[in-house]
């Protein structure tokens, strides 16, 4: 029964609006909310500065919000940071186009994430607070006394973050396209709204630093929760209930697509994709808090346990993400037609914005679309700040100006945050979105290769710095090669996905995990070899007590003079 009606549903509403008109009401709502958020971003410069005469003239103030965010601000900030606009656009798009393995893994991913965060991040917070570390590369450099290893971590972080920022622009672009803004003929007019949006973002990030996204994240979340809750209650009723929606999805996923000659993807993963599903979730979860923007959110908290408390309350977002993913299935039942501006090309990424526009009054669709657009601004701001901090601390200060004052650090970081955003904009305008998506895919594989150096360092000094460096290099090389070798079955382009068989077997897994295992094995074996050869292990400036310090304990700078003259590495 349900299968039959679902066929009807998927055929019946296939009457697309041939040319895209501009939905004026929805567009007006989006613009008003956008302006409101922009003003808020500027106002944020004066938020919680506590009358500090120095203003935002240090990395701690500009780049980490004064390391002062409590539980609730952190909840909003990290919520906006981790669950990005791109996530909200791409996950339902994947569900709509290819079913559960490529889309729904986001749910176990964002569950498994929090125990990992709980375990690792309190220790990282403590050692960073005590030593004034702003980035993971600061920590790795201090822990292993190795410039090359710190540089490797920093460069990986920056390179992995850039396409991620570009993808936030893809999120804004999806909203603008659905609203009918832009022109398929004129590239400048087409990208002008995007340029304006990013101009606003760049200016308030420059003036307010991390405080701006923290404040805007609150607005964004209110909008997102509102939109998702209303959609989840209203839309299933409209489209014949969940029974029918799952029926329609199952129908689509088991019907052979004439273009590829295959079914779109599994409705429920079969035995051949168990490993892929689990490793995608695990690998993504392990990788997420290696990204500079996640670490920035963690280090901006005011006490050791703030992040742990947040690990218990952040999963609420995962529930929202789960329902958002299912909106991809709702769109199948609703017969949503995600058409590009030219009225011909189908772009799955437009599916959720289109679903809202088709089925809600214009003003409410405007609120939902604004939630996505504003949702892009929060992570884009944090990412550019995080990448800029990394550049400033681990490249500029390390290699070009060792005696940079805090004021100079903040200034360099502000300017590099502009450069980073400008680069992302060029990336999106100059190349097509698939280049950004490929780079993001690679970025996820690369960033996981910094995991052994960072995470092992939080617990033990056993690993040798050169072994970790070699492991990182092997992981990056294998991961890049494996991802390049995946060919898209339709377009025959390289970087066709992030799943590949473990070499010598038929078991398909997330490439990042295979690369990570190689990385770990190389680190382990080489550590034994290098230790046997008595290669110098480097100076460790941390002490075991640093990893348990909280905000009341004195920072190392307070007794730097006496601490350094105690003998060598602790472990």
């Amino acid at each position, binding site marked *: 029964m349900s299968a039959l009606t679902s066929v009807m549903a998927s055929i019946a509403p296939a009457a697309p609006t041939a040319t895209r008109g501009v939905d004026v009401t929805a567009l007006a709502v989006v613009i008003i909310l956008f302006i409101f958020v922009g003003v808020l971003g500027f106002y944020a410069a004066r938020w919680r500065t*506590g009358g*500090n005469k*120095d203003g935002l*003239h*240090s990395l*701690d103030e500009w780049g980490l919000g*004064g390391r*002062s965010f409590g539980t609730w601000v952190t909840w909003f900030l990290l919520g906006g940071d981790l669950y990005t606009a791109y996530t909200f656009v791409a996950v339902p798009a994947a569900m709509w186009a290819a079913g*559960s393995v490529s889309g*729904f893994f986001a*749910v*176990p991913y964002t*569950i*498994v994430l*929090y*125990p*990992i965060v*709980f*375990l690792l991040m309190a220790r990282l917070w*403590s050692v960073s607070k005590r030593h*004034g570390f702003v980035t993971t590369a600061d920590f790795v*450099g*201090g822990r292993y*006394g190795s*410039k*090359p290893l710190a540089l490797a971590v920093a460069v990986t972080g920056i390179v992995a973050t850039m396409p991620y920022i570009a993808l936030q622009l893809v999120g804004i672009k999806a909203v603008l396209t659905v609203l009918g803004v832009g022109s398929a003929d004129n590239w400048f007019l087409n990208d002008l709204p995007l340029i304006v949006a990013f101009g606003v973002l760049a200016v308030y990030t420059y003036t307010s630093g991390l405080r701006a996204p923290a404040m805007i994240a609150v607005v964004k979340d209110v909008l997102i929760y509102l939109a998702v809750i209303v959609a989840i209650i209203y839309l299933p009723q409209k489209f014949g*209930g*969940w029974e029918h929606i*799952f029926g329609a999805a199952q129908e689509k996923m088991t019907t052979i697509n004439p273009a590829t000659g295959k079914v779109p993807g599994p409705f*429920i993963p079969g*035995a051949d994709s168990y*490993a892929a599903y689990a490793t995608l*979730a*695990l690998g993504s979860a392990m990788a997420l808090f290696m990204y500079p923007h996640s670490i920035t959110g963690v280090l901006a908290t005011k006490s050791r*346990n703030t992040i*742990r408390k947040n690990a*218990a*309350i952040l*999963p*609420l977002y*995962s529930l929202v993400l*789960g329902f958002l993913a299912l909106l991809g299935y709702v769109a199948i039942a609703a017969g949503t037609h995600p058409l590009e501006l030219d009225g011909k090309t189908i772009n799955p990424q437009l599916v959720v914005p289109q679903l809202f526009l088709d089925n809600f009054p214009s003003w409410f669709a405007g609120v939902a679309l604004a939630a996505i657009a504003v949702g892009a601004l929060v992570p884009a701001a944090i990412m550019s700040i995080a990448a800029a901090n990394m550049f400033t*601390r681990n490249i500029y200060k390390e290699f070009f100006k*060792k005696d940079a004052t*805090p004021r100079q650090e903040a200034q360099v970081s502000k300017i590099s945050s502009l450069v980073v955003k400008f680069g992302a904009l060029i990336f999106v305008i100059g190349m097509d979105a698939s280049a950004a998506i490929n780079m993001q895919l690679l970025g996820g594989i690369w960033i996981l290769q910094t995991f052994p150096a960072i995470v092992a360092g939080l617990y033990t000094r056993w690993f040798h710095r050169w072994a970790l460096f070699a492991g990182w290099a092997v992981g990056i090389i294998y991961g890049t090669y494996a991802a390049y070798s995946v060919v898209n079955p339709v377009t025959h382009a390289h970087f066709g996905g992030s799943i590949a068989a473990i070499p010598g077997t038929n078991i398909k897994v997330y490439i990042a995990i295979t690369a990570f295992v190689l990385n770990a094995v190389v680190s382990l074996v080489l550590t034994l070899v290098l230790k046997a050869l008595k290669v*110098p*292990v*480097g*100076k460790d400036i941390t002490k075991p*007590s640093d990893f*348990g310090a*909280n905000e009341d304990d*004195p920072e190392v*700078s307070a007794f*730097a003079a*006496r*601490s*350094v*003259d*105690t003998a060598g590495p602790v472990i």
Partner: protein
Amino acid sequence: MSAQNITHDSPTRGPARPMPYVISGVMLALAVIMPLVVPMYAHDGPRLFSFPFFYWYQMAWVPVCALLVGIAYKLTTAEDKRRRAAVTSQSSPNGTQSGVVSDGTNPVSGPDVTEQTHGTSGSDGTSGPIGEPHKGRHDAGGDGE
């Protein structure tokens, strides 16, 4: 300043009792492993509110994970607090930590000494400058708290 006798070697926390960490570890391990055993839930039935098992099982793990992490949070922060209290009550009478021997043996002085030790301990060539960022680091906002 009250922090006069506290050095980088002073412990920030007293010794740990294993139980809170063992229990928390089990909670966290459950929340990592259970959502990843795909064969256990990759099937359609039993359905709940028309949701196939595959979908509702994973969604159900969201609140369960929050609960498990929440319990781990309560346990570890309580233990954290106890360990911290153990250190402060120990150190307050004489102002210094038991077991910290290096404090008395090393001459305590200004940045010059720091520079010297950097030179000698950094025999492998790369380690010296790493300690530098902290010297004279301007500590914005930290003093107010």
